[in-house]
């Protein structure tokens, strides 16, 4: 296990994610594989959350397809720094499409948590917020503490985007809280909840 500054970051991912989806209303949520999806499940499994168990590098693009299909609904992607790093090009693709209703939030623990807490590029010189800004996201922010999180929450939930926030969270191993694993079930429950039961007949 790598040690470094991330062990001392004040924000705790479970609490951050609970705040991100609190009183979620009409929010549609995509969770990046592994820990971000477990965090979302700990905050409350929901049919309008699509938690990934794979497809590493694809979370933000799933959010884009959904945001373009349902322009009147807010779409929130919650993913990890490792997952985002595998699909950095998605940030450019999203910026070109410029969906106002999409927010991408990275829980940046500077680690590949699922695979043994190895350091990611963000433990070194890489700054995902700067990448998103360079890709062309009009709204970008870095969050290190509770006050910044509180200020960002309404922007994540409502500001015309696309919105990107990188949240530095403590590198910590947490108990697994697993969502359903069957991909067809996850897809069908999402479509039924969003589009009505006829969508899965």
């Amino acid at each position, binding site marked *: 296990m790598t040690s470094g500054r991330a062990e001392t970051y004040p924000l705790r991912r479970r609490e951050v994610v609970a705040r991100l989806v609190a009183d979620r209303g009409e929010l549609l949520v995509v969770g990046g594989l592994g820990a971000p999806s477990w965090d979302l499940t700990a905050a409350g499994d929901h049919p309008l959350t699509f938690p990934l168990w794979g497809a590493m590098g694809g979370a933000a693009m799933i959010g884009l397809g959904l945001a373009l299909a349902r322009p009147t609904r807010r779409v929130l992607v919650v993913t990890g720094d490792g997952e985002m790093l595998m699909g950095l*090009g998605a940030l450019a693709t999203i910026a070109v499409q410029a969906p106002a209703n999409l927010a991408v939030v990275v829980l940046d623990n500077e680690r590949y948590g699922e695979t043994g807490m190895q350091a990611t590029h963000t433990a070194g010189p890489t700054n995902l917020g700067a990448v998103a800004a360079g890709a062309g996201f009009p709204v970008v922010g870095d969050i290190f503490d509770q006050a910044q999180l509180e200020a960002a929450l309404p922007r994540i939930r409502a500001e015309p985007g696309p919105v990107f926030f990188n949240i530095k969270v403590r590198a910590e191993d947490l108990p697994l809280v697993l969502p359903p694993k069957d991909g067809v079930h996850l897809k069908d429950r999402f479509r039924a909840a969003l589009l009505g039961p006829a969508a899965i007949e």
Partner: protein
Amino acid sequence: MNSGAAQDWPRDIFDALAALDVRQVAYVPDAGHTELLARCAAARAVRMVLLTTEEEGIALLAGAWLGGERGVLLMQSSGIGNCLNMFSLARVCRFPLLVLVTMRGEAGEFNPWQLPMGRNAGELLRLAGVRVTRVDEAEQVGPAVAAAGRTAFAEPAGAAVLIAQRLVGVKSFDG
């Protein structure tokens, strides 16, 4: 309808996609898709989504389907190699995935760097659980896309149409 000489297969694809109610067109450009891309870009109901790499399109179209929209993914054969792990998303969740591939690396190809994926794209798709239809005749292209799309969206499942290089034309320079 086309009664003249050469069949306008890009127009036939466009008509088939319109009939399928395809709304999101995801692509990494290929010279072979030039006319189709231009037709799609001119259609008001269609959203063109330029990708940085083909695998993005698989995730995009999964999200589109979650939101109730249909899409298509356009690429050249080398793009299949960029998609392999992301095909798992479509397969495991049984998302519809309609992929139209213009082939390179076939007879007359001058660029040897196109040969590996030109030879293997079809088999890799099959291994990834995507149904594959190959078309060598211009008048087969439109019907093949219509049929592949119908099953892809009805099943739902992955379906790819591989368009032979001889229909696309053999490039004599660049990659």
